[in-house]
């Protein structure tokens, strides 16, 4: 074979390069590649022809043909990249979502914990830190635990301060009551535990009373300390610390007024400093107004005796307040009755997110 037998490489390269450029998709490009560089491709055939050449012919033809092959490979690779990119661009062109469409809200965003539950968790966090356990008792109580043990004599007008719900009279003439306060839990605690005792007793309580500020069912929390030396001074300190922690203020003035409860002696009512000058808003720890929030006192010697404790040896104090009421004060709900109406609008607005768990480390209302 002679050199003159070589076809026009330039023309071949022009044709093939044009073919590569013209390939509109990857299969088209592959067809061009096979036609040129496949087993029987035009360039492959030329490469095979090198074997029959004289060394001189091969010296010039070899690099020319190999060069052609390399350039074609490069051109095909480049074209393939182009075609891939174009194909992807084209696919992405069609893959569109409307990102403004609303997603489902996370269930945890919809669910709510009732303010009463939240406030009980807040109280528990504060008092657990002072070493108080949480005690509970039945809602249906007997006369002894609800009244007699607490130094409410039969027929005493103090019993009338409680509008009591009764269950039917039994054959023996006794009748159970719906507890009018959580104090029977204190009695149950003193009867079953040896001092020192430190408990809080949150729970449902009942009085047959219904108006703007009273519902037949409400919630109370009481605290009880029994040991050999705790006195009114300690009670004062606990209540001051509690008010600061609960209302989340740096300081709050408190006013202790002598009062009367059958189960404490001395007895006091406590007002806290507040500012009510802004309509519909109460701020604690400032202002010159007073708001009554709780009753308390030293446990009455008769109550200690009724619970089997010697008042000359043991003493202690107790306090009680309305959970619903302090929740209203802290979070600004205007109407007590709405607490029990299960109106989803109210619950969603005043309720708490399930993961907003009150802690002292993270803040009660974080």
């Amino acid at each position, binding site marked *: 074979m002679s050199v003159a037998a070589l076809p026009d490489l330039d023309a071949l390269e022009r044709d093939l390069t044009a073919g590569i450029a013209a390939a509109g998709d990857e299969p088209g490009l592959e067809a061009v590649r096979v036609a040129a560089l496949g087993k029987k491709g035009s360039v492959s055939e030329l490469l095979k022809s090198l074997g029959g050449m004289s060394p001189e012919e091969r010296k010039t033809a070899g690099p020319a043909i190999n060069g052609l092959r390399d350039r074609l490979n490069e051109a095909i690779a480049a074209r393939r990249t182009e075609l891939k990119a174009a194909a992807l661009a084209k696919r992405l062109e069609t893959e569109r979502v409307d990102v403004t469409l609303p997603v489902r809200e996370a*269930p945890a965003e919809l669910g709510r914990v009732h303010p009463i539950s939240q406030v009980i968790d807040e109280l528990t966090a504060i008092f657990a830190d002072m070493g108080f356990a949480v005690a509970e008792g039945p809602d249906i109580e007997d006369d002894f635990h609800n009244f007699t043990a607490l130094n409410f004599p039969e027929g005493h007008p103090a019993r009338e301060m409680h509008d009591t719900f009764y269950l039917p*009279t039994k054959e023996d003439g006794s009748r159970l009551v719906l507890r009018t306060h959580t104090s029977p839990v204190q009695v149950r605690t003193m009867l079953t535990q040896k001092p020192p005792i430190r408990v809080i007793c949150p729970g449902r309580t009942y009085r047959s009373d219904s108006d703007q500020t009273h519902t037949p069912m409400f919630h109370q929390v009481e605290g009880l300390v029994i040991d050999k030396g705790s006195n009114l001074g300690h009670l004062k*300190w606990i209540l001051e610390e509690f008010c600061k922690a609960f209302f989340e203020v740096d300081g709050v003035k408190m006013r202790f*007024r002598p009062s009367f409860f059958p189960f404490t002696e001395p007895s006091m009512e406590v007002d806290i400093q507040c500012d009510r000058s802004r309509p519909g808003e109460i701020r604690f720890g400032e202002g010159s107004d007073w708001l009554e929030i709780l009753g308390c006192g030293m446990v009455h010697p008769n109550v200690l005796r009724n619970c089997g404790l010697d008042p000359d040896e043991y003493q202690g104090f107790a306090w009680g307040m309305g959970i619903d009421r302090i929740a209203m004060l802290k979070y600004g709900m205007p109407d007590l009755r709405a607490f029990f109406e299960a109106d989803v*609008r109210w*619950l969603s607005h005043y309720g708490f997110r399930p993961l907003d768990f009150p802690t002292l480390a993270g803040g009660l209302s974080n």
Partner: protein
Amino acid sequence: MKFTLSWLKEHLDTTASLDDILDALNRIGLEVEGVEDKAAKLKGFSIAYVISAEKHPNADKLRVCMVDTGAGEPVQVVCGAPNARTGMKSVFSPPGTYIPGKDITLGVGSIRGVESRGMLCSAAELELSEDHDGIIDLPEDAPVGVPYVDWMGLDDPVIEIAVTPNRADALGVHGVARDLAAAGLGRLVEDAIAPVAGAFPCPVKVTIADGAPCPAFALRLIRGVKNGPSPEWLQNKLRAIGLRPINALVDVTNLLTFDQNRPLHVFDAGKVQGNLVVRRAKSSVRYDEFFTDDPNEWIDLGHPVKIDPENPNHYWVGFPDAETLLALDGKTYALDETMCVIADARAVESLAGVMGGEESGCDEGTTDVLVESALWEPINIASTGRKLGLNSDARFRFERGIDPAFTVPGLELATKLILDLCGGEASEIELAGAIPDTARTIAFPLLLTDRLAGLAAEDDEQIDVLTRLGFKVSGSSGTVDVTPPSWRGDIEGKADLVEEVVRILGLDRVPSLPFERDENALKPVLTTLQLRTRKAKRALATRGLVEAVTWSFVPKLQAELFGGGAPELALANPIASDLSDMRPSLLPGLVRSSQANADRGLGDSALFEVGQVFKGDRPQDQFTAATGLRRALAKPVGAGRHWSAKAQPVDAFDAKADALAVLAACGAPVANLQISADAPDWFHPGRSGTFRLGANVIGHFGELHPSVLEAMDVEGPLVGFEVLLDCIPTPKAKPTRVKPLLELAAFQPVERDFAFLVPRSVAAGDMVKAAAGVDRKLITAVNVFDLYEGPGIEADSKSVALSVTLQPREKTMTDAEIEAVAAKIVAEVTKKTGATLRG
């Protein structure tokens, strides 16, 4: 308890300001409820003379009055009061005056074309009484131009205090003054009460019957009195505290009630027949004869019935036939044998310690008056008043306990006042019973004040306080003997004395003492049930349910629908008929709430409650339930319709998932739960289930029964669950918190799918259990990934597809090994459930 500042100052010699007095009252435990200064509120109102009152030219019911206001020219006023007339004196307010009873500020007006420059006022417009029938009609001698409040003696602040039930002594102005004096606000004015010598023996004798709750009863006759309106000072005093003056004799008793906390009663002696007996009221049963078919009707109504043995249609029905009293409030009360009365030869004349009778009441014609000063047992007075629903100032005081030693001095004081105001001549005092001696001595260690109250007060300081309050103290240090005064029946022991010392010295002197944490402070304080309660709440809220707190009582019908309604759980005195029975389940409350929300347009609600349910009336019958209820489209993935998928109504599996979430959060061994289709009646029989652990029922879930929805008049679909948190077994306490070591298998798990055809009645759970039981070590999971019923398979069959995960632990499994396990699975599922493998 109300009194005016000037009244207080009759008993308290003080230079303290009103504000100082109010502060002190709060400080010593006599909480100030309010202060009303009428002088400030009503200063624009003055006495005026109506020169003429002519008919309005354009209105029949109006009058045009020319009014002399005492300042310049007469003023023209249009007045609509029926009693407006020429020559009367009334109360006038000029334009610009604020009218409290109407909440308006007066302007110059034109009424039907006639100009009106002010107003003649009714007592209601001044908020002095409810009387708005006409304008105030003043006596002829009322001075024109003088401010009405000044003339009425209303220019005196009225103080209202809340008196706690233990402090009966503070229900009289004198007692309030004593407390204030002890607190350093001035000197208590104590005038000795001089006995009035009787001119003749009391002609009416008093007998206290056996068992009457009356320790002592003092009585005296004053004859030849001239009763009539009491003097202005007395009327004004009573009016200022909201009492209506009646006549001098009655007004004296009211005055002493509030001045000295000594309720009294006056009988018109002319209307009393014979002697007086203090006794229990008589009640008997009257039998009326009947001839009808059915005596049972009466028996059902609670009447005693006596049937003629010869003729069952002839019977007698018993009706209570009690003594009655027409009381001074104009109402007739039926009395029973627990109540104490004062009776004469004719009938009951007075309800002891509560209210007198109309028949023997004093009026302007009374010339001879019997004055009673008695002592009553407080509990009896309280129970009588409560039973009759009768409140009076006397009852309020007697049931709290008044000063027994003041029984006779109170009568002497009343006598003196009556003689001063009405003249007459007093008899000797007739005293039945005896004044009880309440003297007692309390050993009071003065250090107790520090021990209980943390208040370190000097010995003499403490003794001084007690002495000023009327206590007798013997000793000066260490333990002293204290005798409480007769008016302090509430003082029982030394703790009460600490309270007296502390309240008078001031609670602000009690220091705030840091309360040390004890060694328990760092231990967890919640019980298992308390922890479960809070975890259940948070778990349900994270699933999109909203926590409700519903009433613990539900209507009887609903209690019955949900397995309750036992008679011992029905309130004897429910506040409303739909709050009558203790709830056996939280579902009825949530169902009602869910419908109420739907009625407000929120149909897709998901509610839960964690709270107490009552299976009986004993403490151990009260359980803590966690209960959820989903309505309509309130699915766990989100409520309502959404573009991403077709909206599906809630179903039993949503409730099941909620229940399982609670159980898992509360630490129940969820993998061991048995689930069966035998939920209670309030669930849909085919779409509900029960969870058990061993023999214990832990809870239920499912769609609510359509007839329950109908009975409660609510619309579904409603699905719910209830879990009893107390019934979840408590895990054993572990000695260590270390978790079991994690074993990570080195070989890939293998998953094999099987499709079975089974009768519809077969439970998928049983198929899963059968498959899993083939090799508990190798098979780590069995999942139901497809369920089909419908065309293409037999009518009573369903196709259930299981995917089984095998986890080899020692080496990769060969195909032959896998096939062998698969064959065993098919064989086992077939054997246990009658399934056939689909081709």
